[in-house]
């Protein structure tokens, strides 16, 4: 019985992508600045909004990679 990591509950290296998003958004020194702005929006705001999208893509990738 070895049909996929998510199913057997074992560790998958793909889960490291989760760690990346944790570090990216839980370390405020990375993003607590006004510049560079985008469309007039300070970096602090668009950086975190961008990570919402990146983390969703990561999760989708992990889902597809660990599915059966």
């Amino acid at each position: 019985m070895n049909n996929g990591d998510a199913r057997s509950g074992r560790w998958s290296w793909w889960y490291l992508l989760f760690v990346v998003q944790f570090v990216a958004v839980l370390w405020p020194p990375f993003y607590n600045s006004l510049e560079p702005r985008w469309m007039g929006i300070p970096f602090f705001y668009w950086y975190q909004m961008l990570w919402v999208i990146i983390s969703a893509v990561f999760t989708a990738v992990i889902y597809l990679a660990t599915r059966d």
Partner: protein
Amino acid sequence: MQEINWIALSVFVLLFGLITWLGFAAANWRKGDLDLLHEWGLGGRRFGTVVTWFLVGGDVYTAYTFIAVPALAFGAGAVAFFAVPYTIVIYPFLFLVFPRLWNVCRKHGYITSGDFVRGRFGNRWLALAIALTGIIATMPYIALQLVGIQVVVGALGISGTGLGADLPLVIAFGVLAAFTYSSGLRAPASIAIVKDILIYVTAFAAIIVIPIELGGFGKIFAAVPPEKLLLAVPGPNTTGAYGSYATLALGSALALFLYPHSLTGILSASSGHAIRRNAAMLPGYSFMLGLLALFGFFAIAAGVAHLPEYAAGFKQFGNNFAVPALLLHSFPSWFVGIAFAAIGIGALVPAAIMSIAAANLYTRNIHREFINRNPSDRQESQNAKWVSLIVKLGALVFIIFVPTQYAIQLQLLGGIWIIQTLPSVMLGVYTRWFNDWALLLGWAAGIFAGTAMAVAVNLKPAYPLALGGHTFPGYIAVYTVLLNLVLVVVLTPLFNALRTRRVPLDQTAAADYFA
């Protein structure tokens, strides 16, 4: 005094009527025997990926969130944006932990986290602690949803004195109570679809229209006082605002899916795959929440706080009036009606799920465990229906007679309390190594220390922990759940050695946690 906005009110009432009908009609949706608790209280565990997306989205991103997060941005600035990292880091937990929990719960017919802990650790007192924590943490949350309704009703221009002022709230509550009683979880699931469409329409219209009206994002951010735009850079020997920002996000994320209403939403999914897919799809709501947080800045830039027509609203509701005032200021009346209906209906969805979740906990882990050990299926679901009514009535009485500030403070404490169930529930999904009494003691220590710390800082979320000349301001929930865990790990071998009676049976087997 503000006049009644008839057009907006008509649209609002029309949409409210629509969802009332939908709530009752939902009883026949994917029809099941509503005399069974898992049919009434979990919709028969039959919701696929898309319905789960709407249901959990409507459940977790509540009307109160949509009012309070922009209000915090409006008043305090950048700190409010912690909601974004918060709603990013919840999804790895949802992806990894909860499909396992879903599997084991379905296998054994568990409906609540208390059921799972009872089965896993075989200790009904630990299950009781989990259930009580869930119920008590949920009650003020329901009350806050009603605050969401109060604010939009006030913004529609309906005001009065005495009990007359609360009439719209009582009507909304009556509708909510009736369809929850008759349709169970199917009602909020079907209403969530309508509500979320309205919310998305509102958010995207506002994010396009308002910046154009105000002359672009550059101008909007220029109107915000500079000290509010970023987190304060920490001084020497402290992690300052960075520490509290990050721990608030992390702690809130860890607590979120321990709340009974979140778990009810997750357990009603039709498979573990539906949950995993949702971990990738639910960030759609996080993105919208981030946009909504920016509305607080829009409200600053539009200067609504200084316009005489909104003075009464701000006086009554404080910063929570920022978003309604902004919408009134920026949109024609008919669209305001849609937006306010989205917020008002948005309050009913989580309130319904919360009352169902609390009712499930009471029925399974208190009534069945301690009062009537062998209820019939019908008795059990009837019991839950009545408890859901009592829970909502309690929330209504609370919000009418007690100052809103207390509900907010209790909700803050609720977050600190609910996270103490993490070792039993989230870690319990992975291991049975912990001793059941050690878990109970760790829980008690976490609750006690968390409450004491919160009281010491006047019921604020962050506590300035001092260690070796350094200060680490951080979310109390994170500090106290660590204390809880350390205690559990230290006490487990000790209690195991002292155990005279046999180890309680684990009902679950390793294979139960997988599809």
